[in-house]
């Protein structure tokens, strides 16, 4: 009966599903019973029924037996752990940090890059750069989008902060002015009320708003009475018509949407460019859409200069990439860093387990002699590894949570729906997967080694075998390799961060207070009332005890995401090296004095010059250098595009705006100082923090209705601005330190273990006349050879990885060869100290006693 042979072979194959212990004991009996049952089943039908019974039997008994053996092996592992608590604690700690950091960073990557946006078919949503469709009027825009060859729909958006009134207290909130089809284009339905009607984006009809779910809860406690209520943005009344679903806060944490994109009632045309978001037509490929877009963009930008076009090429990118953009690369590099950490932890734990397995060679040999198969021994060790990894991953979840809290602070998610969380199916699956993978990785070597013990079945094959030593040395070398990559990277980043910290910022940070103000919608909004408001506020602040000087500016240093720019000439001559527009900064009198007296030549603006809007300017050093020397610039005339000539009255040190802009700065009198982002700056004696509330009260006393926000010391602003680079560099330095620690422990452990295992051999050598010093030198040489073996690929890896560091901290140059050399020397020195420490015992070795002991 040919079927019987096939059936039997298949059943025998299926028996592999059972755990090793059960299989060893009962495989033969199971096979015998199967044969008996097979011979009782004559005919096709009976055979089919037999197989149904067999599969049911397997599905019940395999999990039961597996669970029993896992439980038994786990109990055995726990007994072993109790005997070596320090080893176990160290292994769990190292793995918990590795697994936890990976899970934490993965949850960031997951939120930014993998989790879908809360929109319909989000993969088809795009945004463009350096391309604005015809949007002079609603009709123009809607005609354009309806005729598009590659877009199914598109919406125009301008967004920024406004003063929210009509509620219990005045506040600054983020508002988006959109075209009427914004919500329908994204595929977002309001939870209550409605989205904008067709044509509601035309002037006269657009005084309506959709509010965010959070704002609805905050202001109306989730009541339906919100619909039809009036809310004021910059003083303009808006009727609430709908509430967006929870988690909807696109673009940029918006809480209020109005269909006024074409009227621009709230976001000034001058201050912001509009953005536009589109949805690709169904069926069109990315390549086709890109091609169609480029053709259109080329047509639109034909009037721009070629140089400008090369510098700012129009681009179409996916909305998800746009949102993840600024932090995408950084997150991926962090991910690479934590993967290295996990690999180092794994090789360290593998090394540790290897030593322990070698110690247990006798136990394993005895079990093998008693009939335990190679598979049974390997299964035991693998269960131990999995258990270790499981415990570590539970502890790792705490580390992951901590990691998320840290990342959230420095690299907040762009949308509410992208909040980082470990309570996400994909993240938890990742955690389980890397735990199991790690267990396989670090459990594999000892497990294979156990197989060898089985083969030899004697103690002679145990710890002292050259094979075991070579495996351990290879593990240490791998650790050294990974450590060098991290160490060189962290040195490079650390240096860049140090430079960033010590950049000349053009102002004195200590003793400086900043406070932002918005006059939009208040009684001080008209141009002619802005300056009097500021003069009054500054006069009150200057009267406060401890205040030395106060002034105001439209663009605060460190904070300018948007700024004014203009082409510039001096006395009709273009600059030597024109790269971009100069940055224009309107300021009030005493600004430079308040910021820290950085006037190099000339003077700053007088009250009269500001109030009369005189044609005078203060330029920075970079401007002056473009045309000659700083001293020469005074008294000359500059022009911004086609403006009338402006007289240069002072040259100052440039200020650090942390913007990707031309370092040429031109300061102008702020005649109407609330056109952009006005902030008051105050120079105080002593600790600036002590004066914060006093300054806040003084400004507020002028008019409590004017929103005052961001009342902080300049030091706090600098901390905020440097938080992200600081996080990246400290994280990488922490990783590197952790890696060095693990590597050194690995080397120390390997050598110290070798010394213990080879005591007899050393005793013989000493008896034959070798000195302890020479023996230690030999071991030192072996230790350093291991370091060298890891250093070569490590340096190559470090040089390769260096090019990605710049996306973490601007100015982080790629890893240099000298950095690599220093890293290798550092590890070699520490390793040498470790080896020397581990071999101290040799000097104290009593030859007679050692030889007698064996």
């Amino acid at each position: 009966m040919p079927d019987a042979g096939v059936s039997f072979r298949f059943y025998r194959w299926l028996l592999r599903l059972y755990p090793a212990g059960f299989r060893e004991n009962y495989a033969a009996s199971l096979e015998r019973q199967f044969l008996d049952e097979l011979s009782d089943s004559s005919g096709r039908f009976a055979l089919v029924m037999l197989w149904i019974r067999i599969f049911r039997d397997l599905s019940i008994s395999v999990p039961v037996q597996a669970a029993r053996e896992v439980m038994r092996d786990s109990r055995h592992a726990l007994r072993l752990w109790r005997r070596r608590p320090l080893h176990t604690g160290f292994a769990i700690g190292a793995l918990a940090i590795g697994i936890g950091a990976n899970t934490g960073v993965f949850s960031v990557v997951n939120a930014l890059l993998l989790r879908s946006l809360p929109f319909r078919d989000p993969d088809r949503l795009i945004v463009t750069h350096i391309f604005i469709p015809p949007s002079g009027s609603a009709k123009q825009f809607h005609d354009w989008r309806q005729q598009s060859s590659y877009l199914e729909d598109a919406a125009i958006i301008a967004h920024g902060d406004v003063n929210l009134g009509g509620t219990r207290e005045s506040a600054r909130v983020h508002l988006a002015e959109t075209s009427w089809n914004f919500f329908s284009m994204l595929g977002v339905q309001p939870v209550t009320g409605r989205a904008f009607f067709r044509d509601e984006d035309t002037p006269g009809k657009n005084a309506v708003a959709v509010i965010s779910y959070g704002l609805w809860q905050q202001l109306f406690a989730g009541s339906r009475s919100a619909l039809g209520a009036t809310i004021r943005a910059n003083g303009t009344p808006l009727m609430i018509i709908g509430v967006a679903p929870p988690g909807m806060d696109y673009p940029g944490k918006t809480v209020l949407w109005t269909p006024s994109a074409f009227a621009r009632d709230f976001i000034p045309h001058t201050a912001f460019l509009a953005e536009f978001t589109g949805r690709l037509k169904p069926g069109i490929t990315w390549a086709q859409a890109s091609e169609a877009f480029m053709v259109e963009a080329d047509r639109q930008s034909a009037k721009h200069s070629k140089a400008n076009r090369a510098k700012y090429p129009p681009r179409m990118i996916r909305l998800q990439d746009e949102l993840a953009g600024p932090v995408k690369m950084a997150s991926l590099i962090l991910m690479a860093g934590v993967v290295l950490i996990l690999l180092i932890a794994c090789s360290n734990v593998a090394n540790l387990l290897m030593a322990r397995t070698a110690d247990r060679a006798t136990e394993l040999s005895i079990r093998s002699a008693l009939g335990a198969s190679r598979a049974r021994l390997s299964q035991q060790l693998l269960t131990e590894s999995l258990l270790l990894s499981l415990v570590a991953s539970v502890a790792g979840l705490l580390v992951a949570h901590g990691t998320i809290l840290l990342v959230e602070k420095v690299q907040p998610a762009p949308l509410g729906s992208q909040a980082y969380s470990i309570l996400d199916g994909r993240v938890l699956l990742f955690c389980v997967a890397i735990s199991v993978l790690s267990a396989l990785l670090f459990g594999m070597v000892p497990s294979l080694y156990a197989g060898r013990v089985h083969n030899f079945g004697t103690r002679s094959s145990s710890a002292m075998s050259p094979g075991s030593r070579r495996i351990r040395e290879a593990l240490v070398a791998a650790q050294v390799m990974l450590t060098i990559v991290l160490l060189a990277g962290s040195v490079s980043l650390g240096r860049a961060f140090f430079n960033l910290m010590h950049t000349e910022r053009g102002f004195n940070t200590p003793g400086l207070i900043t406070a932002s103000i918005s006059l939009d919608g208040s009684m001080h909004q008209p141009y002619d009332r802005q300056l009097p408001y500021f003069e009054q506020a500054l006069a009150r602040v200057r009267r406060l005890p401890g205040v030395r000087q106060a002034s105001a500016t439209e663009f605060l240093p460190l904070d300018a995401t948007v700024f004014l720019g203009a082409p510039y000439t001096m006395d009709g001559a273009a600059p030597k090296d024109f790269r971009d527009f100069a940055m224009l900064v309107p300021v009030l009198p005493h600004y430079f004095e308040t910021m820290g007296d950085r006037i190099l030549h000339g003077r700053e603006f007088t009250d009269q010059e500001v109030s009369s809007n005189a044609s005078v300017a203060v330029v920075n050093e970079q401007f002056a250098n473009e045309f000659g020397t700083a001293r020469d610039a005074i008294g000359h005339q500059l022009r911004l595009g086609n403006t009338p000539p402006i007289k240069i009255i002072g040259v100052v040190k440039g200020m650090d705006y942390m913007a990707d802009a031309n370092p040429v700065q031109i300061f102008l009198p702020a005649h109407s100082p609330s056109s952009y982002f006005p902030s008051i700056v105050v120079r105080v004696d002593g600790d600036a923090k002590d004066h914060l509330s006093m300054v806040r009260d003084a400004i507020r006393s002028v008019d409590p209705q004017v929103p005052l926000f961001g009342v902080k010391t300049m030091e706090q602003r600098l901390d905020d601005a440097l938080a992200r680079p600081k996080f990246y560099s400290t994280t990488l330095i922490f990783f590197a330190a952790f890696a060095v620690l693990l590597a050194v422990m690995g080397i120390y452990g390997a050598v110290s273990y070798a010394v213990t295992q080879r005591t007899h051999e050393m005793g013989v050598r000493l008896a034959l006349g070798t000195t302890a010093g020479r023996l230690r030198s030999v071991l030192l040489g072996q230790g350093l050879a291991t370091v060298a073996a890891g250093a070569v690929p490590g340096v190559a890896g470090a040089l390769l990885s260096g090019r990605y560091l710049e996306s973490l901290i601007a100015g982080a140059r790629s890893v240099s060869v000298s950095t690599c050399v220093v890293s290798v020397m550092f590890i070699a020195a520490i390793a040498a100290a470790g080896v020397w420490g581990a071999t101290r015992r040799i000097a104290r070795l009593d030859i007679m006693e050692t030889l007698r002991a064996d």
Partner: protein
Amino acid sequence: MPSKDRSDFPDVTHLSPVVFHILLSLGEGERHGYALKREIALRTGGKLKLGPGVLYGSINKMLEQGLIEESDERPDAHLDDERRRYYRITPRGRKMAQAEAARMRDLVQLAAARFGVARHA
């Protein structure tokens, strides 16, 4: 006393139907696995058909609990297959089976007192 017997083996009372049936079969004499399976199927009218995995899983557990043991006695060489293993009940297994039977009897008596005895047609 049944209650006393049960308190001697608190960990394994009550016995699962499979274990009880195996003990019942071995109470009669030594058996190999497949013989046990057939006898149990016969006794239960085909309701309890033990697959190889479940049967040897139970045997494994019973060996660990000391309810049964492997027998060294083997049939004549021409009747034997070395892959077959023979089992017999231990004194502990016998006691357990008795305790289980007593427990069942108590339960049956209680049920009869409460519900009466059903008459079979």
